Each structure stands twice: as C-alpha cells, then as structure tokens.
C-alpha cells in the first residue's frame, strides 16, 4: 500500500493552468469577434473580390447607314483571346504556351500582357480563327486563365469606299486612355480613330454589359453571379447616298484626287471620296505595323482625307468668289466689259491670260465661261485685297467649315493684315491680281469650294456641311447676297458648261452650272521647262451644281495633276452627275434605258 502523495501544490498549479486555458480561449474568441462581427463586412467584400471576375460584354457599335437605309458599316462576330490572371508567374508561363497555341510571336504576347491592368482581362489576340479557338479549348485545363470571348467586330463591306468619311476603329491609344472622354474604357477597347467613327464614337459605342463570374483559385470559371446585357450602340443614318458614293469611287478609279457632293440646300454630304484610300477593315483588329508604315509614309498620302485636309490653290474656281464680291460691292455690273489682249501690264508686271491671243472684249458671263484672267485681274484691282478677302471669308474660305469630321483644316485666305503680321512686309497690289484668279497664297479645301458652289446654287446660303443627318447646329447662314448677283454668277457658270471650259460636264436633259480651275503646283517657268512631267502638272478643279435652276446637288471635284479642270475634273463630275440623275450608262450587256447622254 502506497502512501497517498501530497498533491496540494500540484492542484494549486493545475488551477493556474486551467485559468490560463480559459484566458487564451477567451482571447481567441475576442479575435474572432473582431474579425467576423466587427470587420465581417470588410472581409466579405474581400471574399467577393476574390471569387468574382468582371467579364466585359462588348456592345456592338451602331451601324452606319446611308440616307436610304443601306448598310455602310456593320459588325460581325469574332473571337478574342483574353487572359484573366494577375499572378506574374502565371503570366510568365502563359506567354510561351499561348505563343505556340496561337502561332503568334511570344514577344508580341508578352508586350500585350505587360499592358494588363489588375483585375481586368487583357486581350492577347483579336479576331482569332476557329483553329485558334479549338487549340485553346483543347488546352483548357492547363490554361485556366485563358478564355475566348465572342465580340462584335467592325466590318466595312464597302472596303475602301468612303473610307475617309466613315473612318475606322482601332484599339484605344495610351493617350486616349488617360483622357476623361474615354474614361471607364479598358486597354484593348476598340474606339473610332478617324472619320465619323471617331467624331461620333460616344454615340456609336453603346454601353458595354458585363458578366460577373465566379472563378476558383486557379481562375477557372465556376458559374455566373450577375449579368448585364450590353446595350447596342444606336445606328446612325448618314447623309451619304451609297449609289452616288459608288459612282464617285468608280469615277476616281486609278486617279488621285477627291470629290465631295452636297445637298446645296442643307449642306448634307451626299458623297465624299478621297483617293488613294485605304481599307478600314485592316485596322479593326490592330493594323499590321508594316502595312501601317507603308500607309503612313506613302507619298500619295492615302491616310489624308483630301476633301477636308487638302489645301489646294483654288485656281480659276476662285473667280466665282471674285465675281460675287465685285457685284456685291457695286464695282461691276453683269454688263461691265473689259478688253482682254491676252495679258495685262500692271504694277510693273505682265500678267498673262489663259488664252495667249486674248479673249477680246467680254462681259462677266463670257469672262466666267471662258475663264478670262485679264477680266478678273481688272476685277481684283478694283476690289483690292481687303474686300476680296472679306468676301472670300464670308463665303467660307480661310476657316474650317465645321463639318462633323475630325482634323479639318481651314485653308488660307491672305489679307494685308495677315501678311504684315506674318512677314512684316506690306501687301503689294500685284499680289491681289494673282489672288483674284485663285493663285498666290490663297488655298482652300475641296469641301470649302463645294460650299462656294452651294452658295450660288441655293441663292446665298452658306451651308454647314455634315454627314450625320440628325447633326445639330448645322443650319445654313444667310449671306444676304442680292438675287441679281446670284443670277449673274449663275449665268456665268451655266455658260461654263453650255459653251465654255466645262463643256465636258454637259448633258442634254439636265442643265449643269460649273466652273473649271487649275491649281498650279510649281512655278510656271518650271512647268514650261518640262511640260509633260506628270508630277508637276496643275491640279484640275471643277465646281458645279445641277440642275442649274433648281439644284439638288453641288459638288467640288479635284483631280490631282489633271492639267486643266475642263480636261480632267469636268468629265469626272459628268460621270458622278450621270449617276445622280439616273443618266448613267447601264453596264455593258445589261438591258437598260436608252442612252440619254449626249457628248459633243
């Protein structure tokens, strides 16, 4: 039998251990209270962030329609390969695997992955092929961070036709990402980058929807928590007439130049082409850098919209402005005659006329019809630069027209103040003589000149050209020109086509009013030295409107290096007008209407 041990110390100290256990457990309870009840909401949010990923559902951009509802630009479904993970190791691992699965260079994938923003997916390949999608689907388990999204892609069925007016879309640029106008857009979003696509980007984009999906810790999608359907961008009806546009494109096939046709009453742009052009379809998925470089450095400047970005000497088309100014200022009357011996000696200079032998004595109508320079030298001398500049500016030169397209230039209408400010030299009278026939410093865009034609066509309204029919703030401005002035200038322009330099634009059934012009691109002396070098030939201009009495169309046509407007631009205008008035020759072999066109 053992002696019972004295356990008092043991028992006392056991009590201490028990108390310790109680205190520790109580401390843990306090911590859990703090985490779960006090800060529970915070951790709940973190858990939500953990498990959900936002997947953007791209809203299809609004279609662009012509004035008759024909589709100019639409969307087609395409596949985007996107990466969701944020972990650097997994991105590193992905680059190589994606490169082999998609047949893309690893460097380009790395470059795209480097642009990833946290918690936002990044697109590594746009417009992936079905083969790409199949290759990824087969590797689904080893590449859980990669997914394929179906996104609407911009499609331009007309290819390069009206490319400059319609514009193009492309990935949002770094600079755009920073700007408030594009806020809430992620890297890789497609936005308008030129033309109507750029100018009306906000309206066309619609509102992207999203899917909030539940992903597991490896990034694999486990389900969907929330979905907001995308709101399609509304379609936009343009004033362009697809058939007329087609005629403009055909007329310019193989030529450099541009044409723009307006509704003279409203300023709606019926057609607009600038050649050479480019195919906007090439841009929608990120343009190939080589192609971009060749477009950007091409000396024929296919990326430039000549209609609003080309500043050309207006040449003799400027005589429409000079005539209007002189009539309005009361310096001449329609009956006023001048004698043209083929040249004019003034300000110690000899200024030549287009006709070496001279036009003899002619009035305003015949001066316009035959494009007599001497007559307009006289007009210019009487107007002086101040009044000439005043009227030119009134009729829209020297400032952008305000067309609803980006990057329009204003051209230049020189004046004495302008010269003094810029060159610190006074204006010389001889300069006015040159400007009066559209040479010298003056320059204008084809759109500005089409508008000048419209002013005469509509009886003195300065229209605001626009492409979107519903565009606001596009009401014409009444210039307050006397009807007699309009009639006199119009009579001259009718004579241009009926009996003058623009005869190649003549129809039997429709009366066309027009004005030819040629814009020198080099000094006369150089042209005389090598008269046949194509690249130094003057540009050919033709302004016109028709029918002359109740015009439905006003147009400016410019054929680069086309020698004279009558030779090169008037036939192009003729072809376009034929389509507008339904007088076009039917395609060979097709049964059609009898040929109403008369050429002489």
């Amino acid at each position, binding site marked *: 039998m053992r002696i019972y041990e004295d356990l008092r110390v043991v028992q006392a100290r056991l009590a201490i251990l*028990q108390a310790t256990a109680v205190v520790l457990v109580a401390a843990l309870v306090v911590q859990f209270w703090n985490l779960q009840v006090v800060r529970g909401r915070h951790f709940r949010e973190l858990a939500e962030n953990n498990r959900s990923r936002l997947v953007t559902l791209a809203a299809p951009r609004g279609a662009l329609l012509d004035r008759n509802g024909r589709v100019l630009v639409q969307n087609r479904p395409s596949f985007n390969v996107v990466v969701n993970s944020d972990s650097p190791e997994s991105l590193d691992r992905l680059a190589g695997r994606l490169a082999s699965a998609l047949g893309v260079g690893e460097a380009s994938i790395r470059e795209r992955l480097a642009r990833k923003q946290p918690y936002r997916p990044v697109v590594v390949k746009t417009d992936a092929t079905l083969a790409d999608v199949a290759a990824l689907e087969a590797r689904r388990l080893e590449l859980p961070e990669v997914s394929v999204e179906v996104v609407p892609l911009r499609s331009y069925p007309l290819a390069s036709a009206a490319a400059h007016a319609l514009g193009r879309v492309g990935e949002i640029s770094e600079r755009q990402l920073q700007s408030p106008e594009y806020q809430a857009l992620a890297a890789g979003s497609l936005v308008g980058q030129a033309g109507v696509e750029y100018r009306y980007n906000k309206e066309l984009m619609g509102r992207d929807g999203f899917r909030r999906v539940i992903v597991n810790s490896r990034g694999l999608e486990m389900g969907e928590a929330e979905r907001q359907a995308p709101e399609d961008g509304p379609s936009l009806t343009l004033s362009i007439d697809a058939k007329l546009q087609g005629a403009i494109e055909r007329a310019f096939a193989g030529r450099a130049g541009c044409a723009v046709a307006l509704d003279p009453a409203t300023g709606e742009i019926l057609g607009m082409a600038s050649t050479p052009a480019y195919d906007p379809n090439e841009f929608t998925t990120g343009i190939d850098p080589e192609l971009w470089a060749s477009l950007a450095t091409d000396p024929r400047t296919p990326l430039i919209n000549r209609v609003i970005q080309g500043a050309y000497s207006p040449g003799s088309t400027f005589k429409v402005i000079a005539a209007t100014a002189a009539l309005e200022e009361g310096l001449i009357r329609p009956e006023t005659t001048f004698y043209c011996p083929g040249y004019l000696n003034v300000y110690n200079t000899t200024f030549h006329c287009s006709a070496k032998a001279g036009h003899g004595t002619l009035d305003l109508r015949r001066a316009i019809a035959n494009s007599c320079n001497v007559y307009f030298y006289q007009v210019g001398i009487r107007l002086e630069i101040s009044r000439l500049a005043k009227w030119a500016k009134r009729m829209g030169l020297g400032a952008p027209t305000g067309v609803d397209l980006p990057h329009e230039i204003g051209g230049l209408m020189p004046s004495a103040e302008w010269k003094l400010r810029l060159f610190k030299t006074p204006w010389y009278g001889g300069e006015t003589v040159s400007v009066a026939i559209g040479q010298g410093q003056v320059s204008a865009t084809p759109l500005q000149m089409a508008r000048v034609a419209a002013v005469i066509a509509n009886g003195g309204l300065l229209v605001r050209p626009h492409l979107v029919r519903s565009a606001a703030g596009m009401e014409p401005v009444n210039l307050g020109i006397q009807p007699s002035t309009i009639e006199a200038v119009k009579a001259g322009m009718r004579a241009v086509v009926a009996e003058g330099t623009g005869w190649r634009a003549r129809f039997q059934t429709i009366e066309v009013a027009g004005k030819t012009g040629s814009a020198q691109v080099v000094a006369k002396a150089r042209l005389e030295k090598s008269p046949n070098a194509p690249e130094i030939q003057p540009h050919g201009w033709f302004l016109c409107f028709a029918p002359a009495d109740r015009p439905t169309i006003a147009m400016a046509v410019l054929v680069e290096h086309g020698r004279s407007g009558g030779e090169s631009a008037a036939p192009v205008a003729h072809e376009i007008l034929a389509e507008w008035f339904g007088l076009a020759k039917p395609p060979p072999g097709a049964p059609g209407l009898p040929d109403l066109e008369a050429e002489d």
Partner: protein
Amino acid sequence: MAIDRRLVYNVDWVLVGSSLALALTGVAMIYSATHGGRTPNLYLKQLALVGAGSLALVATAAIDYRRLADRAMLLYGASVVALLYVLRFAPVIAGTRRWILLGGFQLQPSELVKLATAVFVAKVFSDSRQEVLGLRDLIVPGAAVGLLALLIAREPDLGTAVCLMPILLAVAFLAGLRMRAVAAVGTALVLVAALAWPLLKDYQKTRIYTFLDPSLDPRGAGYQKIQSQIAVGSGGLVGRGFAEGSQAQLGYLPARHTDFVFSVLAEEKGFLGVVVALGLYLLVLWRMLETARLARDRLGAFIVAGHAAGVGFQVVYNVAMVAGLVPVKGLPLPLMSYGGSSVLSSLMGIGLVLSVRMRRFAN
C-alpha cells in the same frame, strides 16, 4: 487487463462526448472542404479513422497508466528509434520526411511521440521526490525532450517539435518548479528565439516578415494568412452556410482540410460556430485538467496535465494561426484536422486521460 465495473463507472463521458463531437465536426468540415475536389471521399476516410481512433481510445484507456509509465524508458527509446528511422528511411513527401508507410497507411511517428513524451516526462518528474525544483533539475529531462524535438525538427517539422516543449514545461511547473525558474525559462525562450533567428531558413524568415506585413507578398508567403483571414472574417456572425463558403469551396483557402480546417468552420458556421467549437475545446482541456486534479498520484496528474498542455498549445496555436494572430506553421488542429496519425494520437490521448481518471480510486 479486464475492465471492471468501477473503471467504467469513472469514465468521463463529458470528455469523451465533446472530443467525439469535435472529431465529427472535423469530418463534416473535411467533407465541405473536399467534396467538390479531386478527393471527394476524404471525409469517409476520416470517419473511418475516427472509428479506428475510438477503438484505440478504448484500448489506451484499458491500459493502466502506471504500467505504461513503468515502461517510460522503453517508450522513449522507441521514440528515438522511430524518429531516426524516419530521418533515415522515410520517403520525401512534399519536401519533408515525416511518414512511415505501413501497409497502405502513412504513419507519422512524431504524433505518437507526443504521447510518449507526456508519459516519459511525467514519469521522470513524479519519480523525483523533491518538493521544489530548480533550473538544474530541468537539465536532464530537458535534454531528453530536446533530443526528440531536434529529431522532429530535422524532418523538418518545426511545428510538432515545438509542441513537445509545453509538455515538459507544464509538468515541470506542476512538479514544483520555482517561480523564479519559471520566469527564467520564459526569458530563456525569448533569448532562444532571438538566437535562433539567424539559423532559420529563408522561407521561414519570409513567413515571419510577411506575417508582420502580409501585403509584402500577397500572392506568396502572405497568401495563406490573408486568405484565411478573409475566410474567417467573411463568415460573419452566422456563417455562409455549410458547404457554401466561397473561400473554401473555390479553393482560395490553403490546406483547408488539414491545418486550416478551422477556417472552413469559421467561414461556413460563422462566429457562433466558432464559439461552440472553441467552447468544446475549452471543455476538453478543462475536463483533462480536472482529471489531473482528481488523479490519485503525481504520475497520473503529470501525464494528464502534460498531455493537456501539449494539446492546449496546439489548439491555441492553430486557431490563432487561422485568425491571423501568429505566423503560419504546419500544425494540425487536434481532433478536427484531416490526418490519420493526428486523429489517432488525439483520441489515444483522450484514452490516456481516461486511463488516469478511471483509476483514481484504484490501487
């Protein structure tokens, strides 16, 4: 070794009941954590292990703890041999040598070494007839336990190695260690921690740095702590619902059926579930220490208290780790975590306690 009626009469049914309740809660949480994964039947395995553990519990309770203590040196020697064997021959699994393969089962000797240590230390101190112990009296048992801890730490399994220390300290404390010595030991532990710092491996240091500031490396070493806190915190008052916790179900929570099983409970059962589970653990510890108080001799009291200290340390550390209070260490939660050796040793430990309690009036 027949169990007489008096022994059965003295079984602590509260202890047994709360232990089994925790073990079964663990099975449920393991189900929740793994049912959607690659090993959906793990909970059945754990259930079978709880069953086997219960048998082991009964078997252990049936052994007279004094007979066991008589063989303390044998247990100690067997522990050293087993640990040496593990270090020398065990396969490398996840970078460590911890397990012996025994006919399809993986046995982790270090789990059973904890029980052996409790018996061994209790035996050493109960044999000592001194009323008051000084630091010097700690040297021999300290060295013996230190050797075991060292072997386990070499596996490497620092967590389990550290678990041996509370056993030694608790028994020494009960055996009459001077309060001055208690203070000295406390100071020494702090010093050791400071001196051990240069010896830690880089990943261990990183763990401690990121414990202090998890945002240093949210995808790396800080990940486990952050994800566990998110799981716990998002559980709120009543929890996300059984098998409904997104952190556990979607795999954000690491080691969710083993070391972090308590996070699953906290996420899915909320603060109320946590309070119940912690209450059960406190009840288990309390009843163990009660058993120690009621023990008829110092040996029994020491065995039970030593074991309770080891279990208590492990529970508190694991739960504090889940709550983000202490650095992440690979340390299972007794009774609840998945793992055969852990369940087995947890339930055998309960059996050991019962063995003492049942014999409180026996000779």
